[in-house]
């Protein structure tokens, strides 16, 4: 456990609850394995002693704000998670005044599973470009840390280099395994439609067969709905019980968005997403 950060978070949470600024604080506590972390909602002062922060705090707690729209909540966010706050603000799913953001200047999270904790930083942390959250009300700080330089999308480039047939084969193999539990959707802070297209009957976009064709429809549409919106927390991939490398899809689009529009989702809450706007610099195909 990172004592320095944990203490700052606990103090902050205590202050917020004591003053009645927030109804609850969404943070992390120790999981039932005694080793990793899990989300935790502190509503009472006593609960704040359970709050922790360390390198196993992978969850993007911003998702939970969608369940707590009517109440002012505090939420602990890592720099990467904070992008999702801007996304939800931009899409008017949350109100800024209803959230108190306890930012954490994180040093990266490691690969974990229940009762397992590796020493390896998660891949996304190795090329993380955010030293601190893009939006916060309080920042739990620690010594600034090294950020590894390097190619942001080595795996995507590798995938792009493959012929289309072998890419198709790769994804058929992956999607073939999908059991359509929709955990990837449920954990995603960008997925909040009251009725997901995948569950609509009229028209029926995706059939209920848990089989390659339908799975592929689900996965590709999910990815497209996140184009320019995915903030890269990679919770979907972490949750997937069938180990489908979803980040390869999400980050491919992230890369395209960067290259085409110099846009990264969540950096601000103001900017119009590229798909909702049209700029003159974009190719018109005819005289302006």
């Amino acid at each position, binding site marked *: 456990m990172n004592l320095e950060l944990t203490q700052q978070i606990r103090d902050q949470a205590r202050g917020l609850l004591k003053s009645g600024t927030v109804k609850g604080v969404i943070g992390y506590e120790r999981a039932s394995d005694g080793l990793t972390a899990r989300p935790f909602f502190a509503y009472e002062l006593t609960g704040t002693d359970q709050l922790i922060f360390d390198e196993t705090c992978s969850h993007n707690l911003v998702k939970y704000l969608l369940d707590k729209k*009517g109440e002012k909540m505090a939420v602990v966010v890592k720099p990467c998670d904070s992008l999702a706050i801007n996304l939800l603000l931009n899409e*008017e*799913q949350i109100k800024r005044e209803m959230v108190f953001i306890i930012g954490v200047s994180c040093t990266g999270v490691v690969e974990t599973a229940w009762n397992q904790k590796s020493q390896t930083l998660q891949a996304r942390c190795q090329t993380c470009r955010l030293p601190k959250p893009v939006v916060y009300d309080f920042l739990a700080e620690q010594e600034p840390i090294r950020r590894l330089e390097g190619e942001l999308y080595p795996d995507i480039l590798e995938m792009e280099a493959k012929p289309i047939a072998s890419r198709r084969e790769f994804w058929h193999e992956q999607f073939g395994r999908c059991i359509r539990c929709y955990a990837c959707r449920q954990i995603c802070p960008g997925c909040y439609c*009251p009725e997901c*297209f995948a569950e*609509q009957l009229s*028209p029926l*976009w995706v059939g209920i067969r848990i089989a390659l064709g339908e799975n592929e429809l689900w996965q590709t549409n999910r990815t497209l709905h996140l184009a320019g919106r995915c903030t890269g927390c990679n919770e979907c991939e972490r949750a997937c019980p069938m180990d489908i490398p979803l980040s390869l899809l999400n980050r491919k689009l992230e890369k395209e968005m960067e290259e085409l529009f110099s846009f990264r989702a969540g950096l601000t809450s103001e900017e*119009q997403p590229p798909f*909702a706007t049209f700029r003159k610099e974009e190719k018109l195909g005819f005289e302006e």
Partner: protein
Amino acid sequence: MNRNMDRKIGVYICHCGSNIAGTVDVDAVTEFAQGLPSVVTARNYTYMCSDPGQDLIREDIKNLGINRVVVASCSPLMHERTFRQVCESAGLNRYQFQMANIREHCSWVSEDHGAATEKAKALVSAAISRVYYNEPLETREVPINPNTLVVGGGIAGIQAALEIADSRHKVYLVEREPSIGGHMIQLDKTFPTLDCSACILTPKMSLVGSHPYIELMSYSEVVEVSGYVGNFKVKVKKKPRYVDVDKCTGCGECEKVCPVEAPSEFEYKLANRRAIYRPFPQAVPNVFAIDKRGYPPCRAACPAGVNAQGYIALISQGKFKEALDVLRRTMPFAGVCGRVCTHPCERDCERGKVDQPIAIRSLKRFMADYELKAGREKATPVKRTKEEKVAVIGSGPAGIACAYDLVRQGYPVTVFEAAPKAGGLLRYGIPEYRLPNEIVDNEISYVQELGVEIKTNTLVKNLSEVFNQGYKAIFLATGAGVSQKMNIPGEDTLGVIHALDFLEQISSGAKASLGNKVAVIGGGNAAVDAARVAMRLGVKEVTIVYRRSRAEMPAIPSEIEEMEHEGVKIHFLAAPVKVLSKDNRVTGIQCIRMELGEPDASGRRRPMPIKGSEFDIDVDNVIIAIGQMVNKEMLPKELAFTGWGTLVVDPITLQTNIDGVFAGGDVVSGPADVIAAIATGKEVAVSIDRYLCSVDLKEGRPEARESVKDVPKEGVVTKERAVMPVLELGKRAGSFAEVELGFDETKAVAEAKRCLNCAVCSECQECEKVCEAKAIDHEMQDEVVEEDVGAIVVATGVKVLDHTQFSIYGGGVYPDVISSLQLERMMSAAGPTGGEVICPSNGVHPKDIVFVSCVGSRDERTGNGYCSKVCCMYMAKHAVMLKEHYPETHSYIVYTDARGPGGKIFEEFLTRAQEAGTTYLRGRIDKVSQCDGRLSVSGQDLLKNKTFNIPGDLVVLATGLMPSDGVSKLAQSLNISYDTKNYLLQAHVKLRPVETFTDGIFLAGCAIAPTDIPESVAQGGAAAEYVLKLFSHDVIDAEPMTSIVDISRCSGCLLCRQVCPFTAIEAETLKDGRVVASINESLCKGCGVCVAACRPGAIKLRGFSDQQLLAEVMAL
């Protein structure tokens, strides 16, 4: 799939003569359709859109109970409306109809009968599947605003505006130029009847100007259009014409006094107009406009913003006193700055790009000299209108400039000066041979005469005392009056003098005794001044030691030059290491050689000592001039200082850490030049005024002045810059007489005439003086007005290609190669030559005139492949008229095809031209060259298949027509289509020639394609007729295809609101607190963008349900 029996579909397949039936097997398609579910009947007919065809459908609806109709024929653009009306007339909802396009999509694009037939079947099947799910939709009624916007005040726009206004509907006529009239008003006669163009147009123009139902918005542009038919919202930007349209009487007095000339656009540069102008005397509105392009570079470059173009323009007119007034609007120091200014204005002078910059500083000095020579009248004191007293501490240029601005605003201002005389460094720092004291005295007295009180011999050390005396604001402008030390051994030795002390000593008349050899350390103006003063005091050998090279020397280059003339030596790249002495008396100075390293913070290369390169110079005195510092001792302790010893101030407001105390000049910047000090003084005056009026010190403060760009220089004849006469070298030694002698009047006027008038209007404000109507307002700003209209007529016309871009035809190369419109202007009695046709090069009547057709038309090389339509006829007109006026002339017309199409007497007119002796030559020009002083047009005669070579005195290029600039942008905001050449597209070329695809927007005139005057008038009238038809009802049926939100699916992300081009989507909070999108149906145009953007599929478009579309797609 189970099918609902109550769906009864009728399918009608059109042959379109042989258009469809020639390729598609219509019988096979009919038979195929007959067999599809729910199809009750399928028929085909030669022309389904004809009456008998329509009746077929009506009969079936009545007799067979058909309740859904599919017509397979042409494009819906063509006949969807027709067939919907057929359905409606037979009692069926018009939206129970679906069209399959088997002409454009099948027969016209395929020669394969089998494949075309199969595709037709697929499209018919898709339409049937879709129509099965079509639901009846009800149209909505929307009110119509009966006002019209007409864009473009040429003949087409004028015609449309008048027709509509005569029917008592309000028209806003927006014209980009200062006057309406378009190209037609530039013409002399119009073909083929040879009516006088102005005679037939000006009555219409004046009608527009006086019509009670027309609001003329000239010199204005449409910037934004939103809304839809019957309910457009239009934003029009009224460009500032700096003349109040309502007050101006058109008397023209202003024009007479305007010192600035610019080529007249109306006369195609054959004549000049003034900066304040009216394009032509019959202009409507008959109102002047000022062509003001911004800040001239000289003014933008001046830290104090002195309007150099303004006084130069007036000098060029011999209005020297008025010129000085222009300068004094900014600051009082014509004589001072005319001598010592570092003149950044000259560095940026555009004239410098032609030959050399204007001698701006010298012209400034000239004005002061002129006044002084004539004897300056005492200035009239400014009336005190303000109570709050202001204290200025320090009477240098910053302090005086500030006091000057404040006193003119009515403030009581007192200047406190510690020295016995006012002027600060102007007096004590600059030697008299450069700036005589009488000049400083004169200009300071001028400021005193205005009402500024100056208390000399008054040292202020306590600011609270000043406040206690009732001053409400203080300006600290105490300068940087202490010389910097070198910090080398021996600096305190007898014989080492500091430059400022030295100069002050001399200025105040004290004697100084120097030895035979003097070294001056430093490279700034103070060093140069000290060196030159030393020479004047009779020193034999003066050497400047400077640690960098000549390029880095900060002193004014002309001063350095004069100094060297006077015999001063400069030792570059050397720095003193120690002062050598004997018996505490200077004997010499040890220096070290330097080399230049990397650039330092100032951008100059940093000098680095070369080890072991020390050398000695024998001198008797060392004058140190390496810089000045603020004298901290003399300033109140409570002020905040920077690490450099200067005062800390806010960079924008110049306020110090003490409220109400401002600072500027050298005390803030460290040693800088006079003009910079003046600039800060002026800036402080602004701050103090705001401070005393309790206005926010920063909010809305004017931003940096942006210089005009792209100053035209074509045709500028080079002329040497006037040289400043100087005192002979021999007369300088031992004398402090002024070295520079100043310009005389002739020289000044000639030099001023070199000015390019970069900003056109020079803001000399002479016009304002003579305008009795008080119509001129130089401060006028852009104004955007918003109007609601129900219909729009676009008549933006064309521009004529610039003939100077056709250099192969000699355009822009030879002055006697002109454009047709230039010829037209020459022929006009009201034109630049009073109706005389002459060769521009020599003013002689031409004998042989060669007309070249299709210049930039029918020629893809220049971008226009199309025919500009009017040229054949006007060339004939020109030839006929030339012959009439000048029987001795001979016209050649080199043409591609010469036709007068369309009956009337067009063709006869061409014949008349030939009968008048015109030589018609079908050919292509290779080049136009000059030979023996005459032009020579050579090319290929395509009829005789040989080359020709026609000598001519005048070549007239019939340049082609192009849509006006900015049309595509206007079309985009109007949401109407345009072609690759930017001509606007009609809804149907033949049947809907003035309508667009956007309801309520109509077209007229050359914006559609090149047309002649009668056609433009006809189109203007036709467009007006459509507008009036629209206005014949109070309401209009709007398409029912609007978006609807399924709130149970809506996620409230409101992406739809972001993408909606019609601002038809708003957020709505439901009872349970959930926020969802809500469509304002009266704004929704049914474009469907929101449908595509909606991730959860909550938005649907009526008439385009998922079910309809899927059924249509699945049937393919």
